[in-house]
């Protein structure tokens, strides 16, 4: 028993002694505080799969793209000008028809005792005043209007009076007004007739337009008075006339007289510049939609463009070969031959029939113009017709098919960049490599650079060391200028701790980029199709070197 206790005691004593040196292992006051942590990471950072259309829209959000059936892309800038409202140009003013029928115009012979009846008819003619002096209207279908009449008789006999408009009809019935007068004399009768739906045929007079015949029918019933003298006064007015359609000859009317501005934003971006470019097939187009049944011409009286190159305004109408769409060279817009139809038409000015290529070459930021359109410029045919919905709209378009070349499309900017803000983090970076895996399907090559500048704008260093690093090759194009294969390139840009030290005083950075079309030096024409894509992946390799005294990290 004693022996056992001795053994146990020795065991525990030994353990206690050993334990004293254990304390050192847990005395963190003796920890040197150093942590050597050198992990290496690689991870994707950015990716992009960009179509050419998305790239263009990214550059100019206002742009419209046209892609034809073959996928060929054009840039489009447009604006619209429209005709004035039809009701302001071709309209029916209020009409007035008045007169006096004296007893001398009526043969009262034999009409002398009570019970006698005298009937007869007098011819009349009502002339219409039109919207212009040249207008010769044949037919009108009224959709609104009122015929207000005031008739007074001074005869001492009972009188029944009718005004009949035989060529103003509705459902086969002529427009007719009937009045009754007592034998008292001086009696006044009134009438208000809605003429909606009546069709007026104004061709049934000798003049053959702007007139309708009127029959004035009277019936006297003898009242016993021996006095047959008297008169009838009438005043009939058409007011509030609106038509559904109208035919005839409408004369010379100004449908469009409007100024507008067409912005060409691709040349307005001040951040980008280009040394040289060439569009093989620029176009200036005017598209018409015309529902006036009237021969009409269209032309510009003024057209100016402001150049981005020198800020000057150029008169396009007179520039170089001139624009063949001025008042001397109006375009006769096609017009419809049937009611309710719209005729579409266009004029296209291009390299071979205008000065548009020269205009585009001056980098026009905008084009300002005044457009005119006039009816019946040459003829007096009575084939004109309009409806209450007739209009003439013109869309003015500058279209730039992406077929050509570009030389040094570039941008450069300076930005504040205080490296001190990230130096604390950056100093634990032993190596940072940015991998750019580019698959360029655009027929443009690119190169760029970033410069690090100190507070005095002195260049400390640049990001890309070799020329080769800076270049992104253009996609391969065939003889027709179409891309046939991607250009692939893997670029690894390394930033070592030495370089970080070199640029630690950076206060500004300058970044610049340049692009050129494929084989631009030989002015090879490339074509841009909608299926072009550019893909790239940016990943980074990050080697950290955290070799620090952990106590200093908060300092």
């Amino acid at each position: 028993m004693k022996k056992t206790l001795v053994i146990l005691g020795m065991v525990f004593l030994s353990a206690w002694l050993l334990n004293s040196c254990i304390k050192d292992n847990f005395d963190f006051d003796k920890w040197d505080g150093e942590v050597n942590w050198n992990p290496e990471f690689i991870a994707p950072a950015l990716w992009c799969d960009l179509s050419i259309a998305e790239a263009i829209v990214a550059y100019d959000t206002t742009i419209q793209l046209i892609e034809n059936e073959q996928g060929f892309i054009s840039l489009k800038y447009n604006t619209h000008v429209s005709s004035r409202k039809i009701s302001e140009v071709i309209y029916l003013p209020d009409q007035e028809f008045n007169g006096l029928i004296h007893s001398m115009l009526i043969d009262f012979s034999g009409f002398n005792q009570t019970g006698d009846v005298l009937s007869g008819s007098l011819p009349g003619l009502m002339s219409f005043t039109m919207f212009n002096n040249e207008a010769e209207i044949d037919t009108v279908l009224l959709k609104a209007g009122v015929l207000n009449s005031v008739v007074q008789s001074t005869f001492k006999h009972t009188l029944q009076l009718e005004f009949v408009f035989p060529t103003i009809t509705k459902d086969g019935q002529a427009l007719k007004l009937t009045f009754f007068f007592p034998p008292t004399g001086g009696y006044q009768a009134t009438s208000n007739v809605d003429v909606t739906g009546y069709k007026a045929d104004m061709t049934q007079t000798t003049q053959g337009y702007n007139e309708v015949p009127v029959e004035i029918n009277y019936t006297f019933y003898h009242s016993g008075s021996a006095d047959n003298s008297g008169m009838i006064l009438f005043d009939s007015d058409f007011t509030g006339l609106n038509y559904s359609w109208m035919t005839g000859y409408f004369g010379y009317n100004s449908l469009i007289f409007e100024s507008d501005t067409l912005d060409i934003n691709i040349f307005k971006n001040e951040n980008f510049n280009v040394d040289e470019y060439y569009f093989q097939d620029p176009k200036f187009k005017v598209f018409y939609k015309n529902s006036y049944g009237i021969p009409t011409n269209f032309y510009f009286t003024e057209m100016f463009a402001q150049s981005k190159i020198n800020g000057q305004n150029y008169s396009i109408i007179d520039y170089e070969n001139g624009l063949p769409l001025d008042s001397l060279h109006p375009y006769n817009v096609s017009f419809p031959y049937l009611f309710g139809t719209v005729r579409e038409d266009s004029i296209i000015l291009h390299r071979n029939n205008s000065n548009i290529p020269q205009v585009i070459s001056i980098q026009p930021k905008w084009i300002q113009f005044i457009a005119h359109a006039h009816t019946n410029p040459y003829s007096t045919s009575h084939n004109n017709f309009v409806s209450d919905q007739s209009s003439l709209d013109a869309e003015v378009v500058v279209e730039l098919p992406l077929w050509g070349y570009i030389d040094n499309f570039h941008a450069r900017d300076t930005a504040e960049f205080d490296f001190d803000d990230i130096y604390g983090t950056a100093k634990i970076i032993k190596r940072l490599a940015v991998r750019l895996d580019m698959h360029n399907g655009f027929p443009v090559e690119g190169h760029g650079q970033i410069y690090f500048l100190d507070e005095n704008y002195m260049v400390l260093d640049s990001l890309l060391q070799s020329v080769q690093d800076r270049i992104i090759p253009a996609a391969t194009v065939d003889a027709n200028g179409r891309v046939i294969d991607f250009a692939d390139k893997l670029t690894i840009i390394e930033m070592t701790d030495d370089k970080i030290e070199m640029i630690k005083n950076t206060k500004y950075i300058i970044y610049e980029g340049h692009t050129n079309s494929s084989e631009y030096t030989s002015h090879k024409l490339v074509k841009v199709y909608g299926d072009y894509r550019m893909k790239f992946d940016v990943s980074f390799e990050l080697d950290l070197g955290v070799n620090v005294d952990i106590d200093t990290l908060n300092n």
Partner: protein
Amino acid sequence: MKRTFIIAAFLLMAGIVSAQQNFTLFYMNRVMQSKWVNPVSENTYSVTIGGLIVPLFGQVPPAMHFNYANNAWMYNDIFHKGTGNKADSLVFDLDRMMDNVHKKNHFRFENDIELFSLGINWETMYLSLSLNEKIHYGVTLPGDLIHLMAYGNRPYFDMNKPIDLSGFNLNFLHYHEFAIGLSAVANDKIRLGGRMKLLFGLANISTSINNFSLYTNPDNVYMTGVTDMTIHASQPIPVEYIYYEDGDSVDFNIPENAGDYFQPLSYFANPRNFGFAFDLGASYEINRQWSVFASATDIGLITWNTNPFNLVSQGSFLFKGMQVQFWNDSLTLEQSAEELVDSVLNTFHFESNNYSYVTMLPSNIYIGGMYKFKNKLHFGALYRAELYKKSLLSSVTLSVNSDLTRWFSAHLSYTIANNNFANIGLGISLRAAIFQYYIVTDNLIGWIWPQKSQNFNIRMGCNLVFGYKQRPESKIYY
């Protein structure tokens, strides 16, 4: 900063412990608690009563078992004294730390409290009852995750190898165990035993990860994440998981009156999470000197029905970085980052369910033998295999066991476990009158040189024993 670092390091160590070991206890036949691991062990007392609820002596020392283990690091693998001009300093040694990282790195805790135990030795049979409170928790960190944190993902990229995180595991288990055991002599050579356990779960968190990997394609540096995992939980407070598809965000909604849900009495008396398990054992006496035995313990499961909560994630996510949107200049970098997070959430998002689930207990198999060198000196050899979260954890123990006197026995063991070869165990039982004190650990070194240990465990308690029963010479036990 240093303090923070140290605390973090210890939390990592402390949050990590391994399974019930009891290598030394296995041979401590005089202590009834050896039956918890060896159902056929033959106790030498007619009646044994133990547990925390035994007045006074049940609490001094408390009848408990504590175990902490990891299969990766000992303290000196992370911090150790330097050499040369740093001989007096403590240094952080990342390289050595990483040298000891394994494919799966288990860190486990076990806290068992023995509330009551009763053993009755009746002729050739032994009947036992026990009521235990068990709290087990731990985490398994995949080796790839630790390598990723230490070295980054570049080595995997260079080797064109995915980062395998499927070994990740999180586990918390709290349950009552009520066990009834019986062992008996089958014939002169064979003894059979078993324990039936009724389990009542109280709280649980467990993970089931079939696939969780991250691969970086060497051609384009794209990352592909794949997940097929489920997180289960059952706890007294209901949790609602909300996934906002519009905003691509998630939220966990806990009731405002959460306190009302947690009533200690209803928590501890919760019968809804029922389970069962059993232990089986057999021994065979080859001759008077040699015997062999085998046992399997904790073969069983618990069904979880109280506020069950399941999060399932299955998906594959290709991460190419943030998309450059030249055409959307209103999108800020911050918004892009949010979109990225939303995208990841959307892909990896968990779907929430509330179905009951089942967890298996970590099961053990013991196979061993004993050689009676002298009447009071026996040598033992024991192999133990534990099936834990799809891992087979093996260990081997050699032991020297002696009942030195009728009131004192001692057991010395050497164990290779948890990838560690320095595990010297010691078990002692000491009886004074009817009071039997016992204390046992599988890693004595851990208590002496904690900086060189991956395991700490101790089991202790005081039993009331009655009727010492001298084991017949012919029997394999003493």
